[in-house]
């Protein structure tokens, strides 16, 4: 009996506490950048598509909702020819972002993704690709990778020396 009364008293006291819920959507919350919401594909500082279609996000995804196909342009740069996320399956765990070696795939603080049609939650590359670098403004994978692409020849990546001259006999 006493414990019931105590509980009622405690609940009553809550009437005078500060409110934590807000009147969404009239009021909008401010979410931290690391909040895990809508997934985007970003671009590197030069504006190129960041995703190199390595399939790591797809394999990391615990619900298997990412599917893509790797392709390569004439200059040797890899990209996904299609990239699909089925948001109706996504649990916003962020594993894909953690797995991504290029910072291409990023979760953003946007959670307003409701749809009337189940199938509209299937997003293709066109829906995912944003125009900027997202949370990581500096990083460009190809500046550190050894692959030659247009505008970056062998030996021109960070911390690389010029290509070896195989005919050189110097010790």
């Amino acid at each position, binding site marked *: 009996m006493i414990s019931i009364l105590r509980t009622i008293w405690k609940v009553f006291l809550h009437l005078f506490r500060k409110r934590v819920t807000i009147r969404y959507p009239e009021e909008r919350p401010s979410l931290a950048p690391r909040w895990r919401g809508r997934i985007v594909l970003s671009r590197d500082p030069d504006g190129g598509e960041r995703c*190199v279609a*390595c399939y790591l996000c797809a*394999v990391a995804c615990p619900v298997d909702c990412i*599917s893509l*196909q790797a392709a390569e342009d004439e200059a040797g740069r890899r990209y996904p020819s299609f990239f699909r996320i089925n948001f109706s399956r996504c649990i916003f765990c962020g594993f894909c972002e953690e797995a991504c070696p290029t910072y291409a795939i990023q979760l953003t603080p946007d959670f307003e993704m409701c749809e009337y049609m189940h199938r509209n939650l299937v997003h293709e590359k066109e829906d995912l690709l944003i125009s900027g670098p997202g949370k990581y403004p500096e990083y460009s994978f190809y500046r550190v990778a050894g692959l030659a692409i247009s505008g970056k020849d062998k030996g021109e990546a960070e*911390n690389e020396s010029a290509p070896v001259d*195989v005919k050189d006999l110097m010790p």
Partner: protein
Amino acid sequence: MATIFIDNIPYTVKDGRNLLHACLSLGFDIPYFCWHPALHSVGACRQCAVKQFRDEKDTRGKIVMSCMTPAAEGTRISINDPDVKRFRRSVIEWLMTNHPHDCPVCDEGGECHLQDMTVMTGHDYRRFRFRKRTHRNQYLGPLVNHEMNRCIQCYRCVRFYRDYAGGRDLDVFASHNRVYFGRHADGLLQSEFSGNLVEVCPTGVFTDKTLKEHYTRKWDLQTAPTVCVHCGLGCNTISGERYGSVRRIINRYNRDVNGYFICDRGRFGYGFVNSGERIRTPLIRRSKSGEMGPVSREDALKHLEGILYFGARVIGIGSPRASLESNFSLMTLVGQEHFYAGISEQEQSLIDRIVDILSRGPAPAASLKDAEEADAVLVLGEDITNSAPRLSLSLRQAALNKPMETARKMRIPEWNDTAVRTALQGRRGPFFVAATAATKLDEIASGVLHAAPDDIARFGFSVAREVDGNAPDVLLSAEMTALAGAAADALKNAERPLVVAGMGCGSEAVIQAAAQAAWALCGTGKKARLLFIVPECNTLGLGLMTRRGIGAAVKAVAEGGGDTVIVMENDLFRRADETKVKEFFRGFKQVIVIDHVRTATTGHADVLLPSCAFAESQGTYVSSEGRAQRSFKVCMPEGDMRESWRWITDMAEIAGRPEGKTWRNIDHVVKALAGLMPVFAGIEHAAPQAGFRMTGLRIPRQPHRASGRAAISANVNVHEPKPPVDSDSAFSFSMEGYEGMPPPELIQRYWSPGWNSVQALNKFQEEVAGPLRGGDPGVRLLQPGPLEVPAYFREIPPSFRQREDSWLLVPLYHIFGSEELSVFSPVIAGISPEPYIGIGDQDMKRLGVNEGDAVAVTLPGYSRVFPVKKTAGLPEGIAGMPAGLPSAGWTGLPAWAGIVKKVLHKEEDRHA
């Protein structure tokens, strides 16, 4: 057997092993790079270090390379000693100083031995702050990709390519940390085995360029065990599929067959499965002259009801590239007496001869492993590198067996590769090649003969005579007699002599001569073996099923007529003259063709039914060794495509045959065949049947980490489709199922915790490089006859006589081009030769032509103009023509042909 102590626990290991081999076989994980079970040890990478102790009292020990240390009795080592662990970690760290930051864009990623070993040693943080050395890549042709930055200088590539496969155009250049593995200049890798670099190289330097076109990680590939369909050797392969297309093929280990390697035709020839030439829907010709129109499966079957009525005279033409099951179902549908093998008359008589010899004579058929172990080899009439490529790799190893005795005498262990090769000093054992033109194996031969097929046969008969005086005598030139004598001596002195011949030069006499030589050797008490090369993946199987080829079919129809012919997976225009085939088809009211690619024959169909290529069908194939092997579906056929035997079972139902109702899965067909023909009794055991389960579970075709199943088809339908059910095998089309090691016939991929690369294979073998756990797949169907030598062949062809006005045109084989299916793959078509006429030096003078000049070639009913190509080794009076090129048209070679120089009048010439 020797006892060694690993971290103070005794283990028994086989004699003559090195520590690395022994420890890996015992299931220990020791990282390694330069050692390879087939290439042995050189001690180059320093990765496989262990600590060795003198005795129980020794506590300090010393670090040794396990791959270079014999696992001798009483050896005491530690794998987990902290010093040695630190040593191994620093070796990797040091290799990694120059390694690029490439894994995400590297095709090796996810199945990279370097990644595996790095994780295994525990090197996880880059401390090195200086610059990385870089390299420029080379263009190595359309098959193999080169990304030299990733090299860790293990030397495996050159050791495989040069030492093992005999290639010359890949080598190591430059010095110290600049060493470069590549060609002297950009260009197509010339070895027929270049694709093995993809598996041999532990990093992403050499990767599969055809995979790159539709790149998929290993963890996403849906894979199944398959059997290569591009020649008669029956190499075991693993094929991988993703998003409905075949993505790549890798080697599947079978110690008795292909071991660790396959040829480039088998690895890169799969493109025909994805090609635009596939037939995807049933097509029906509404009126005799009309166009073919697509119909549904149901409509096609309804249409067939009007054709396969009771009492219709139907004949069936089978195919050497179709499975036993498909051939047998066709035979059942039309009746044994109306079933024909659909191979040319010449092929039929050759395969009949081979079947007789292998089942009657005392010499057993040799497996590829037997070939590799032979210590004296006689090759008659085959350009093996091009007609049965994988065999040439085995024979290159066989040539080292005799000289190995030197190394053994010097007490050099077989695995000490550098020491062995130094001891051998490039010497090779007895190896005799008789062929119509120069072959790549000539370079390792101790005696070479280039002659006409008849003379090759005479040479073979003469070898037999030299071995056994009771064999009939042959008169040869002094030179040939001496060579025959030398060959006979070598074969007589060998322990495991091998005679290789085949259907390649189109001569029955050559096949008989080979048998004669082997039998003569058997008569002297030798364990001689015979290896007959057959052209297609099921030529021998079909040869065991029926003895009637296309010639018999033509004759039967000319005599008795027919209403309908069913041609299954066969392009008859590759088997007989165009006019003859056309006339044959005209003899029928209806031509039903079942095939998976468009060929000249499908153009003559009134009903064309889409069948499945190897990747979408299950079936049993009999290799040239007489080994029945099962190949499994990698993916489900799309739409209305179905296996030939399923179409035929539907037809059987229409025709009112009981099989139409009772053959529900492929096991029923296999059982019926095994029951009906005793020679096929063994095929039921070629692999576990459809009802087989491991702990109640199916075996998953997809790896447990396969990704994307909730998204792959979400663009079409957000609800995931139920995976198809395979009613023919124990495999599932999903990632669910038994996780452990499947039985050897059902190994669908190599993976083991910590071992993501193909080197996980170590875990699937009883002993590394030994048989697979549970035995090597396949059932041998042919048992040799009684030990005594059968009556010798006494009909010896007369020696070849050059003719004034005509040339004997012989077939010249090309690994890329001569085989039917691989040429439908765009990459293979791109590296296949254009038709030409090969002429020897002397004859070029006689004809007054130079390389590139045009000559007109006339055969009965055939006249074409081809450019001349100088072909080394062709004897006088003999010309060659590339075999099987679709653009050359069928010509039953060898045949006498008129060849005249053709002066092409060019536009400019006339103006001048």
